[in-house]
């Protein structure tokens, strides 16, 4: 397949190249050629800069070739969590994946994240994902009456849960987890990350309520340390480590 030829022209100092995106499509209302709900692959050819992100390429397609292509996005720089998708068979944010970091000699595969119901093209129903997040009671449960000024916390105590505060709820981790794919019963790594953020916060007193929930059938014990979550997390959160720390807390009673 000769999807790409490096065109020798330079534009603003950046090489222009031909890329092919092969996108998994699904239109709930059907199109001329496809029944409602049927999914199919469609190829688009376009000209792009090496420094473009996959999101730029999707925009180019939507804006110049096929306006019906549906996907979510907002911030375009990896902080809002809208555009997790499976790109070349791995979960990533479209806005954080540069075309030059993918093999441009082959078509770039783009499909929705797996394990949540597909609504249209790359858009999935995020509700089950957020429902798991809400289940772990993701809010501070402080002890005692609020002090007049701030609750004190040392830099070391603050550092203890820093990693998991970075989560942007993009679902890249949960939908990369092979255990989550099996039956969707598993809360998934994100919910554990969400709980970890509070369990290890020195100001929080709701640890045992959350640990109880994570001790459930659908909780941490379902994790088989496959590490797909950690590898997929666009925020670089050590997800498996957070899960492991929860298991340890459950086993030893120490936080």
């Amino acid at each position, binding site marked *: 397949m000769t999807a790409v030829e490096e065109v020798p022209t330079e534009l603003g100092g950046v090489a222009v190249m031909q890329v092919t995106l092969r996108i998994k499509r699904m239109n709930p209302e059907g199109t001329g050629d496809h029944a409602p709900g049927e999914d199919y692959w469609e190829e688009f050819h376009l000209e792009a800069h090496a420094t473009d992100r996959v999101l730029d390429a999707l925009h180019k397609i939507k804006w110049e070739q096929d306006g019906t292509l549906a996907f979510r996005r907002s911030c375009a720089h990896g902080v809002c969590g809208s555009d997790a998708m499976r790109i070349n068979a791995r979960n990533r944010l479209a806005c954080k994946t540069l075309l030059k970091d993918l093999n441009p000699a082959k078509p770039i595969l783009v499909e929705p994240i797996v394990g949540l119901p597909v609504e249209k093209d790359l858009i999935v129903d995020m509700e089950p994902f957020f429902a798991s997040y809400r289940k772990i009671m993701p809010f501070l449960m402080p*002890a005692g009456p609020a002090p007049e000024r701030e609750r004190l916390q040392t830099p070391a105590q603050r550092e203890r849960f820093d990693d998991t505060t970075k989560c942007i709820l993009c679902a890249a981790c949960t939908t990369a987890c092979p255990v989550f794919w099996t*039956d969707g019963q598993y809360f998934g790594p994100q919910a554990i990350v969400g709980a970890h953020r509070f369990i290890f916060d020195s100001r929080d007193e*709701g640890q045992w*309520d959350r640990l109880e929930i994570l001790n459930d*059938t659908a909780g941490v014990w379902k994790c088989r340390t496959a590490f797909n979550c950690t590898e997929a997390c666009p925020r670089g959160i050590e997800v498996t480590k957070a899960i492991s720390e929860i298991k340890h807390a459950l086993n030893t009673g120490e936080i």
Partner: protein
Amino acid sequence: MAAPELSHPLPSTRKRLTPAHRWWWKFQRISGVVLVVLLFAHLFYNLVLGDGVNQIDFAFVAGKWAAPLWKWWAFALLVLAMLHGMNGMSYLVGDYARSQRTRRFLNALLGAATAVIVVLGTLVIFTFDPCPQGADASLLPSFCAEVGK
């Protein structure tokens, strides 16, 4: 620990953490470590020492189990491997069975199979007679000849 202040009541979860999953998770790891020792010694003895696979026959087994160490070794291997395997398989059931009913059915089946195998195996190991009456002497371990006298 003070009760959390909540604007609306949440399900109370103040009871003790249920230990089942946790216990099995730990068991899986502890049994794993022990199994490494038990299993590799077993394999080494049977497949590498002496004539390897070819040596295995009634006489070989009987000779081995004449020693109480190997008897207990086999027993520990049996129990730990079966429990470990059972729990491992029930992880798969939990992952792949779609409904609660199938899950319950398959787990029951697993439990039953494990029980049968463990009981059967235990009986065999401990009621086993290395020199059964009337058996062809050439098939028996050499020490039977002396016992018979």
